[in-house]
């Protein structure tokens, strides 16, 4: 089978040299768009595969892969081929589906991989969330005019920074771990029952809010919470936000808009110089003032709306992403054919 | 009761000795880690073969013509000695495991 990897608009690339070796071992014929890895620090020389222009790659391949579907504006060219990408950033889903159907394209959306133990090696959301969580803290530390750790020095003492993490999923947990590492005092909130133990297992404090709704069927995902819960949570959290220096929000609910956990008035009560990093911005943001893909300032508080911070760690992100894709292909393709369409993972990703 | 007291005062030292031996037996074993249970059991078993001393003494004091006693005692000695020798050798093998480490 011939697989082609396209260059993305964003810095990540869907094939790295180590992943390439795996494809070759598995007997695939790999081609790469020229210069695709440059922004992640992989030169064309680093790859031992064919490098073509974009149109040639598309023409020559059965399966075409790129990191983000927004790089795929030439949908008609993919007719009768297979497309694998992350479609979660897609603005106009209907149009895309239309194009896919019309052109008889087999398309897989990697962001739909189920959150099961066995699928974890293909789960781009997990791997990218981890990176985003880390980077969110680094970014906050870069913006914040304070040091994270406590310091008792001859010139006076520096108090440790207070970090509040809202949403202790994969990204949130990694943010907690990173902030703890840097010496911050960390508190976190999440409606999922399991989250409490997970937060404590990283040495952070958990903000208790009663009355969360849980759905065991949701596959580990959080479900929509009641108004009352969200209100109680807002109260509990706001109290802490006034003291906080850094707030990192990751709260998402599968299939709906992210809950708004920080209202304008709370932002206005926060200390000047504080930083909010909103990783949920692409699904509407957890802060009322978040603007997706923008850094705004309100009353001295910086609000960073960015759901794709992983892209800033392009080197590592590309590495994990391309491994995820390889693992996916390795799973769904057996002996040159796609496997049984009833397979859980196959079913979930198929558009 | 009077007899017992009598026996006691006659064998006073022996009774102290028995008491102390029992105490010693308890004391010696009381803090053994459980990995040593089997080897220790084996080692103690070998020691319990001390009964063959009786066989030796018996043989030595038996009339050389009293073949019945001699044969029976010899068998007892033979069987008992297997217990003793086999016991010590087996224990030794089990315990060598522990030595390996220390010699490194």
């Amino acid at each position, binding site marked *: 089978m011939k697989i082609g990897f396209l260059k993305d608009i964003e810095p990540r690339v869907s094939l790295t040299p180590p992943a390439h070796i795996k494809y070759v071992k598995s007997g695939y014929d790999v081609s790469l768009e020229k210069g695709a890895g440059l922004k992640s620090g992989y030169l064309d020389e680093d790859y031992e595969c064919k490098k073509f222009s974009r149109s040639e790659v598309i023409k020559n391949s059965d399966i075409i892969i790129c990191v983000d579907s927004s790089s795929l504006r030439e949908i008609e060219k993919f007719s009768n081929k297979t497309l694998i990408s992350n479609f979660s950033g897609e603005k106009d889903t209907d149009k895309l589906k239309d194009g896919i159907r019309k052109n008889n394209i087999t398309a897989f959306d990697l962001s739909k991989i189920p959150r099961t133990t066995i699928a974890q090696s293909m789960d781009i959301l997990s791997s990218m969330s981890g990176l985003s969580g880390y980077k969110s803290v680094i970014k906050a530390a870069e913006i914040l005019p304070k040091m994270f750790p406590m310091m008792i020095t001859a010139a006076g003492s520096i108090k440790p920074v207070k970090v509040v993490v809202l949403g202790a999923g994969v990204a949130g947990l990694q943010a907690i771990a990173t902030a703890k590492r840097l010496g911050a005092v960390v508190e976190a909130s999440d409606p999922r029952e399991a989250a409490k133990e997970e937060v404590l297992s990283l040495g952070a404090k958990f903000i208790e809010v009663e009355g969360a709704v849980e759905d065991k069927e949701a596959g580990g995902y959080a479900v929509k919470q009641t108004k009352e819960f969200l209100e109680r949570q807002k109260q509990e959290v706001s109290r802490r936000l006034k003291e906080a220096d850094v707030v990192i929000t990751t709260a998402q609910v599968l299939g709906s808009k992210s809950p708004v956990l920080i209202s304008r008035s709370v932002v206005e009560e926060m200390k000047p110089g504080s930083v909010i990093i909103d990783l949920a911005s692409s699904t509407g943001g957890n802060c009322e003032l978040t603007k997706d893909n923008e850094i705004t300032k309100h009353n001295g508080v910086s609000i960073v709306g960015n759901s794709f911070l992983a892209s800033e760690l392009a080197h590592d992100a590309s590495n994990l992403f391309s491994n995820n894709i390889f693992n996916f292909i390795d799973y769904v393709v057996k002996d040159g054919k796609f496997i049984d369409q009833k397979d859980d993972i196959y079913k979930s990703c198929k558009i | 009761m009077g007899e017992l007291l009598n026996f006691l005062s006659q064998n006073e030292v022996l009774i102290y000795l*028995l008491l102390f031996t029992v105490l010693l037996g308890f004391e010696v*074993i009381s803090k053994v880690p459980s990995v040593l249970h089997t080897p220790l059991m084996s080692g103690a078993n070998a020691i319990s073969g*001390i009964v063959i001393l009786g066989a030796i003494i018996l043989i*030595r004091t038996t009339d050389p013509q009293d073949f019945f006693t001699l044969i029976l005692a010899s068998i007892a000695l033979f069987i008992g000695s297997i217990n003793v020798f086999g016991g010590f050798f087996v224990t030794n093998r089990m315990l060598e495991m522990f030595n390996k480490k220390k010699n490194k």
Partner: protein
Amino acid sequence: MDKILFLISAFLLVWGLRLQSDPASASKGNKFAAVGMLIALFSASIMPLENSSGNYLWILTPIVFSAVIGYIIAKKIQMTSMPQMVSIFNGLGGLSAVLLSYTEINKWILSPESYPGFVLVVLIVSLFIGSVAFTGSLLAFAKLDGYRWSEKLTLPFQHIINLILLFSIAFSSYLFIDSSGGYTFLYIIISISLIYGIFFVAPIGGADMPVVISLLNSFTGITAALTGVIFDNKVMLLGGILVGAAGTILTVLMCQAMNRSLLNVLVGGFSSSGSSSKSDEQGDIREISDSDFAVQLFYSQKVIIVPGYGLAVAQAQKLCKEIQEVLESNDVEVKYAIHPVAGRMPGHMNVLLAEADVDYSKLIELDEANENFKTTDVAVIIGANDVVNPDAIDDTSSPLYGMPILKVWESTSSVVLKRSMSAGYAGVQNPLFFKENNKMYFGDAKDSLQRLSTELKNL
């Protein structure tokens, strides 16, 4: 001269036993005791006796033969059948005592004036205990070895039958002494004693055999002491009592190690064996004691620790590092096998171990770990579950099927630290826990590792 030798020998026996209660000196202790025994044999052979008549050939021949045979058996036997061996040996010891007593009693029957009655009582008791030790040990061996009779066999009214047997023995003995030695009574005594030995062991489960052997061993010790009284030999007396006492304590300790009482074991109490306190269709699990675990780690060459989410929950990473350091200072190679999905977020274990300052070079990844387990003595699984679940390989119906996992069971043995038998994230039971070479070490990981660390430091 012989008296001094006996004294030395007694000292060596005691001291040898004492040294054997510490792993570091146990081997030396056994040698001490062996030397003590040789000295005792030697001085018993040279000691001046009133009416000594030599017969040295009758002594030397059996000793030489048995020494050779004992040596060969000990060499050939597999490490795993040690308890059986001990059991056989113990039976032989019992038999030897029986023969001796019988010979002595025989002497008395022939010339009743040669012993006072009290000696005869001692002889009969010795005969009885020796017989019980003999048949009991043989049955114990059979149960251990073949596992054929390993179920407990309890007759109805077992206790009453036992009482009747005991009473019959006592009564026959009385008749025997009273009749000044009818062989019939003697044989009745012997037969019932032998049967009693079987009845004694029969109701006890196969897994409890080591306890029984230890108990029978202390019985043999007592016969030796009794025989010592008859032959007026202090070393026999003291050695016997020593073994009797030590054996009894040892038996109690072994019961404690299995969380049972001695009575419970003897009555064949609540289950067929202590080592299977929990079981379902999957089979039995085995628990490991603090000290066994510590010693096993301490004397390993290579240990691989598999951390999981439970280690994070318990926040025991620092203790884990501490144990790593203790082991390393004893030349044990320690590695951490990090499964890619262990924990609850990517890299959870890395974060955890970095907190404890575990060197990166100690971390090995899945593939490397799986190559390593084959040469590993102990795999220590701390709060991990799904990532070491063999169903991922074997069971196509498992939700984990297809996930690469850490094959900890390929190491010589594995120990799992967790709080209960409950499942991990994926919610499925783990067949690893029931494998032959796996042991469980229950408790919150922090407490468990604390106990382990204390035990290790005391070694």
